[in-house]
C-alpha cells in the first residue's frame, strides 16, 4: 500500500520524500440509487416528488432536503429526457494524477421538463463548444440499450446519468426565454 522512493538529498537542501497512498472503498448503493440506475438501463429517468412541497428531484436521495421528509418508492415518477441549459462553463482541465480529461469541455446544468432540480456537470453535444448558451433546448443522448450499465453511480451527490445517457444535444428548437427557467439558473 505504501511505498517510498524518495532520494536522500544534500544535507543543506530540504528533504522531501514520496508517500504513495492507496485506499480502497466498497460502497453499497442505496435503494433509491439502485432504482434510478435500473430506470436508466430501461430508458427511464426517475424523479422523486416530495409529498410536502411537490418539488421533483431527479436522482432522488430518498428524502427532500428542503422539507427534510422521506421520499420512498411511492414518490417516484418519470421525468422527460428533454430540458433546458440553465447555466454552464467551459472547463480547461487541470492536470493531476488520475485526471484523464485533456481537452476543454462544456460543464452545463440541465433542467429537465417536469423537474425542479437541475442536473449539474452535463456535456452538451451537437453544437460548437462556443455556441453553447443558457436557454438552449436539449435532449438526452441515450446509449444503445445493450451498452447501458451502472456507470457513475455513487453514494454521494444527486447521482449520475452516465449509465444510460452520454450527454445532451441541441434539439434545434428556439431558445427558451430566460423567464421560464430563471428560478433554476445555474
Amino acid at each position: 500500500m505504501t511505498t517510498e522512493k524518495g532520494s536522500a538529498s544534500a544535507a543543506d537542501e530540504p528533504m522531501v520524500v514520496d508517500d504513495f497512498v492507496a485506499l480502497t472503498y466498497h460502497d453499497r448503493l442505496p435503494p433509491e440509487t439502485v432504482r434510478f440506475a435500473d430506470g436508466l438501463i430501461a430508458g427511464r429517468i426517475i424523479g422523486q416528488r416530495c409529498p410536502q412541497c411537490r418539488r421533483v428531484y431527479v436522482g432522488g436521495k430518498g428524502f427532500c432536503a428542503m422539507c427534510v421528509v422521506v421520499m420512498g418508492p411511492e414518490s417516484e415518477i418519470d421525468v422527460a429526457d428533454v430540458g433546458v441549459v440553465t447555466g454552464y462553463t467551459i472547463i480547461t482541465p487541470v492536470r493531476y494524477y488520475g485526471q484523464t480529461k485533456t481537452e476543454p469541455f462544456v460543464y452545463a446544468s440541465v433542467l429537465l421538463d417536469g423537474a425542479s432540480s437541475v442536473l449539474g456537470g452535463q456535456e452538451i453535444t451537437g453544437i460548437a463548444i462556443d455556441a453553447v448558451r443558457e436557454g438552449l433546448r436539449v435532449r438526452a443522448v441515450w446509449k444503445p440499450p445493450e451498452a447501458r450499465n451502472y456507470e457513475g453511480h455513487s453514494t454521494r451527490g444527486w447521482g449520475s446519468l452516465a449509465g444510460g445517457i452520454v450527454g445532451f444535444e441541441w434539439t434545434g428548437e428556439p431558445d427558451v426565454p430566460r423567464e421560464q427557467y430563471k428560478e433554476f439558473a445555474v
Partner: protein
Amino acid sequence: MPADDIAIVGWGQTPSVASTDLTEPQLCLAAVNDALAMANIDRHAIGFTCSGSCDYLSGGPFVFISNLEAAGAWPPISESHVEMDGAWALYEAWVRIQHGDIDFALVYGSGKSSPSDPALLFPQQLDPYYLEPLGLDPASLMGMQARALLDSGTATERDFAAVAARSRRAGAANPKAQTLPNGAGESDLDIDALLAAPYVRAPLRAHDLAPAADGAAAVVLATPAKARELTDHPVFIRGIDHRLEPHQPGVRDLADSPSTRLAAQKAGLGANGGGVGVAELYATSSAQELILRAALGLGPDVSVNPSGGALCSDPVMATGLVRIIEAAQRVADGTTRRAVAHAVNGQVLQHNLVCVLEGER
C-alpha cells in the same frame, strides 16, 4: 467552570450494523428526526447545529456537506462541523449555547465503516513520518497498550475476557447494538471459552476489540428553562471537558489515561467516580475499559457500559455521542441519578472527553 447546566432533551440513534445500504445522510436524517421528535420541537427552533464526521472514513471530501441535508439547512442555519466524533460536536454546541442567545442546539455524528477495512485505513490517521509508513493499525496499537497494562500487574487476560463477556451480554439486550456472532448465547460467553479463542493481536482476541459499524446519532440540547418546559425529567450536563495527550505512543504511558483523569477533574466528576451509578465508556478494547475505569476512579458498584459499550457497537464518529445518549437514557429513566459518559478521539486514548450527567437536583 462558570458554565450553565445545559440539558439534553432529545436523542436518536440508528441501530449499529456491520453494513447498511443507506447513505450517511439517510442515517443522519433518521437519527436527527428521532431526536427532534423526542424533544418535541420543530427543527426551526434550533439556534445552532453542529455535526461530527470524517472524510477519510467515508471515502470522499466534504462528507459533512451532504450530511447537512439531514439538518434541514433551509432557510440558512447557524452551523459548524468538527472532523471528529459527534461527542466533540456536542461540546462545540454546548459552548455555543452558553452565550445565552439561543434556546436549542442540534448535534449529530455519523460514520460508515463498512466501505473500507479499518486495518488498512486507520494507519492514515497516524503521523506520516514515523507511524503511517509502518501500516500500524488500531488493533496493533491496542495490543501494545493491553500488553503494557498486563505488564503493570494490574490486570490479566482473564480480566479482559470478563469485560468482553459482560459487554456482550449487555449488548445482546440492546436493540441498537450490533448483532455479533456468538453475541447472545450464554454458553459462548463462558470466560474459559473466550480465553480459548485465538489471539488477533496478542494479548487481545477478537472479542476484546470493538467491531466497527455503520450508524448515526443525534442529540438536542436545551437551556435549563426550556428543558423544564419540555420535560419533567431533564438530564443536565453538570460538567464536560476534554483533554489531549501526545500523539507518539512511545512518549506516553499506555497503561494509564492521564488525560481522562484530567478531563474528569475539570468536568467536576469528583474523587472515586464521583458517585455515579452508571458509566458509558468509549473503550475500543477490553483493556481500555480497565484503564478508563482506573482513571475515572470507578468502583465495582458502578454499572459500566450497560448498553454493551463500543465492544458491541462502534459506529465510528458517532460512538462517543452514543455513549452520552446511553448515559442520559439511564438518568432519564431513573436507573441512576448521576452518570458519566466518555468519548475518545484518535488511537489508544489519545484524546478523551468526559461528560457528567445528572437529573434534577
